[in-house]
């Protein structure tokens, strides 16, 4: 059922439908043309030799007075049939070679792989010429030649596909169960690679058709009196001056038929792969001018929205302020919008994503909307380039693999601080030392792949320290690192904060990390801040049921091992369909009817504490429900 639906989807795309119709027409032509028009195609008309286009002969006649139009139509069968046979030979031989490692075991498999590796290095036409010599000139020889010449690339494809399947668990399970090699191949591997193989064979058939036309064109393929498109072209090339249509028409036919196979295969391949997400662009958001500027704040965010075509709005109305050398943590589940908030604040949301905010300003300079236009783009870039640092989640992929680490640190300083190459490099080495990378002079000249994960993350932090940062936005900086290295990176961030008076916005799904490092914590759920509280109150004074559930879900040494771990039941909200009431209501055990209909706003509950909840939980109720939560202090991430 699902497969049928996918086929329908493929045929509904313009390319899929067009190519499908074209392919059908070409195949139909190959089927019926020789039955209908063989006579017209071979009838010799000595009174009209080598004539141009006329009413009687649409495309003129050849040197024996035969009608070229009908010859091109009738040649479709020979051309396509031979191409299909050659493709089958290529697929079968390729399959045999590609599956050899599975069937033959290690040694035979290695030999087969080596043969494929060498053969695949030679272009198909060269192999075809070689085989054409061996098998002799003619249709049979050419089919064998092109088929065998195509085998290595199908063998390579098969090997890749088989290797992919063999990594899967069910193959490993079958192997442990003692399933024989042939049974493994026929039951487990072949059914799983059949689909991509057939799709690629369809694409390949187009190429084979063209290659065959090439051989026939050279006189090495179909021999007279038989003819295919390539032969027709080859025969009429010499008379191209007097009679261009005779040479061009079979050429056009070859291209159309080749494209039909090619495009249909590509359309199917695309349809069965990952669907491409497309949508119209949202209008550029209007932003109200900033009211007054809080001079002491490093970052001011008011009513921030991030949206994508769909429309999806993963961040919807977030406001917060970060003061000088303050560490603010943002916690929440995956998909709560924390990372997008970080990227939006850093002005790194790429089209088609859209960022809107009533105010978004950094060190008093507006970054968004009309207010931002006043300060020039260059000045804003310089400000952000020197004072705003980013640390990303995955240090393994966040550094450019083709540039030396030192150069990657240095380029920002050269750009924004006007340093010379040497000055910037010295500064880079100094900063690498500052983030405790041993032998920084040597390390600066190495590539990222020569660094460990923890070192790369420290290099990323060092990159942020090249200027005089006022804010470091760290988006899950420790998630990709192992536990001991996490500790070091966090300590480094804290130390930088104290030494350089830098504010830090620390995004993490790890409430323990946030509780230990931060001054203040923003708890996000479904694109909103649901609670804003001092980190010291995270475990004792949290009032939003979600915050409480988050901290209760962290196991510690006292967690009873014989009971299941605490979880938050239910699933996060789909950012395309927010409920009208509180987004957490469906998962909240304290939810009332009001929660399901009215959306609570973030309101003050005591000093430095804001909660968006209709039923904020007090300490007494909390203690009654979760006795012993006082001990929740430490635990894994």
């Amino acid at each position, binding site marked *: 059922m699902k497969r049928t639906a996918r086929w329908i989807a493929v045929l509904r795309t313009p390319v899929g439908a067009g190519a499908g119709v074209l392919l059908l027409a070409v195949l139909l032509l190959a089927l019926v043309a020789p039955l209908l028009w063989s006579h017209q195609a071979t009838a010799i008309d000595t009174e009209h030799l080598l004539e141009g286009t006329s009413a009687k002969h649409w495309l003129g006649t050849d040197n024996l007075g035969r009608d070229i139009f009908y010859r091109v139509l009738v040649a479709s069968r020979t051309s396509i049939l031979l191409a299909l046979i050659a493709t089958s030979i290529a697929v079968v031989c390729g399959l045999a070679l590609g599956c050899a490692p599975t069937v033959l075991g290690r040694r035979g498999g290695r030999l087969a792989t080596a043969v494929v590796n060498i053969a695949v290095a030679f272009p198909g*036409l060269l192999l075809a010429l070689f085989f054409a010599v061996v098998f*002799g000139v003619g249709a049979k020889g050419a089919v064998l030649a092109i088929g065998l010449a195509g085998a290595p690339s199908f063998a390579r494809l098969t090997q890749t596909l088989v290797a992919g399947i063999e990594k899967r668990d069910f193959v490993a399970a079958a192997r442990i169960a003692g399933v024989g090699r042939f049974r493994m191949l026929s039951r487990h591997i072949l059914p799983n690679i059949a689909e991509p193989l057939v799709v690629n064979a369809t694409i390949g058939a187009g190429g084979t058709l063209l290659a065959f036309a090439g051989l026939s064109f050279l006189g090495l393929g179909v021999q007279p009196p038989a003819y295919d498109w390539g032969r027709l072209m080859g025969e009429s090339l010499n008379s*191209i001056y007097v009679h261009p249509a005779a*040479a061009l028409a079979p050429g056009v036919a070859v291209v159309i038929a*080749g494209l039909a196979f*090619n495009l249909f295969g590509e359309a199917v391949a695309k349809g069965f792969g990952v669907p491409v997400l497309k949508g119209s662009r949202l209008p550029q958001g209007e932003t109200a001018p900033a009211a007054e500027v809080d001079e002491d704040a490093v970052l001011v965010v008011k009513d921030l929205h991030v949206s994508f075509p769909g429309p999806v709005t993963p961040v919807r109305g977030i406001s917060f302020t970060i003061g000088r050398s303050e560490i603010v943590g943002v916690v929440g589940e995956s998909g709560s919008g924390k990372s997008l908030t970080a990227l939006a604040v850093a002005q*790194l949301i790429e089209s*088609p994503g859209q960022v809107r905010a009533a105010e978004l300003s950094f060190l008093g300079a507006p970054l968004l909307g009309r207010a931002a236009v006043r300060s020039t783009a260059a000045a804003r870039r310089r400000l952000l380039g020197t004072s705003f640092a980013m640390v990303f989640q995955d240090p393994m992929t966040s550094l450019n693999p083709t540039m030396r680490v030192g150069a990657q640190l240095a380029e920002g300083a050269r750009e924004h601080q006007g340093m010379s190459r040497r000055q910037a490099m010295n500064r880079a080495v100094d900063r690498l030392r500052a983030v405790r990378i041993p*032998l920084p002079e040597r390390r600066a000249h190495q590539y990222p792949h020569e660094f460990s994960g923890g070192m790369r993350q420290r290099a990323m932090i060092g990159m942020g320290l090249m200027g005089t940062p006022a804010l470091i936005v760290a988006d899950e900086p420790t998630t990709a690192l192992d536990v001991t290295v996490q500790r070091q990176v966090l300590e480094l961030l804290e130390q930088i904060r104290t030494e350089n008076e830098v504010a830090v916005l620390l995004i993490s799904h790890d409430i323990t990390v946030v509780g230990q490092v931060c001054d203040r914590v923003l708890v996000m759920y479904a694109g909103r801040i649901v609670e804003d509280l001092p980190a010291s109150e995270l475990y004792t004074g949290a009032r939003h049921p979600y915050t409480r559930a988050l901290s209760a879900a962290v196991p510690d040494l006292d967690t009873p091992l014989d009971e299941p771990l605490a979880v938050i039941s239910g699933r996060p909200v789909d950012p395309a369909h927010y409920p009208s009431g509180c987004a957490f209501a469906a998962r909240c055990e304290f939810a009332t009817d009001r929660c399901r209909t009215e959306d609570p706003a973030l309101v003050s509950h005591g000093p430095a504490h804001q909660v968006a909840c209709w039923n904020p939980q007090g300490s007494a109720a909390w203690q009654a429900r979760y006795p012993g939560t006082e001990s929740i202090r430490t635990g894994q991430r």
Partner: protein
Amino acid sequence: MTATASVSGAAASFGTHPWVRFAARRLGRLVGSVLVLVSAAFLMIHLIPGDPVRGALGPAAAQSVVDAQRESLGLNDPLWVQYLHFLQHLFTGNLGTSITTGLPVSDVIRDRLPATLQLAVAAFVVAVLIALPLGLAMGVLTRAGRRPRAELSFTSTTVVLAAIPEFLLAVGLVYVFAVTLHWFPVAGRGSASSYVLPVLALAIGPAAVLARICRVELLAVLQTDYLRTARAKRLPAVAVYLRHALPNAVTATITLGGLLLGGMVAGTVLVENVFSWPGLGSTIVSSILAKDYPLVQGVVLVYGAGVLLVNLAVDVILAVLDPRSTIRES
């Protein structure tokens, strides 16, 4: 002190070993490929059903002539003796004698190779000069779903151009620019203008493929984390594209471009025949048709060696551009 020693030791091993390993691995593969190529070229004559000499000289030739030719080609010796002789001759540059003309095969090749080389190199340069800027520009212009209409026309044009085989393109070019417009000669190799059509016929298809690959690679690179890092450094767009995106997009493009260059070497065969270009491509076809096997053997060896050289060059360039590739393979 110990930490210093261990780090410098690691650095030293990073400096030399991967390159040595890379060179050894690459040389091993080259030697293997050359052996296969040489053996295949040698076996070609012996795999042909029937007597190749009888085939070459035709059924009318006297048996005594055939026997004499067989004797002079050494076809009566045991196979391994013939193989050793073949190898021995190969090392001394002796590729045998053409059956039809009686000229040494090496002379024929020396005569014909420059024309083919000029064609292939010129076509490669043209293809790269068209494809890289075009593909990168399209990548930048159509990033993140921008300008969908430009993307559609670029993709469909390149798909169609890439699907047209070079000999068809050649015929089309001849019709338009030589027969109809009389801008360039129809065939032959002479003045500079005679190069235009063959080079274009050979370059357009690969250029279309390369441009498409280049765009897709650039789009992939634009999505990477390290490009986000580069943007986070607030570099100007030009620096982000040229310094960070280009080298990474180009490495993958070179790998595939190398394969295209190999294909281009083979593509000369067809294009030369359309334009009656006096190169190796027209030689190999005429010698196959004339069953002049020693000549076929020699040309196959030259083409094969050309392809192997191109592949080697691509691997070395890649290793220099992207140091990870030397390690990744091991």
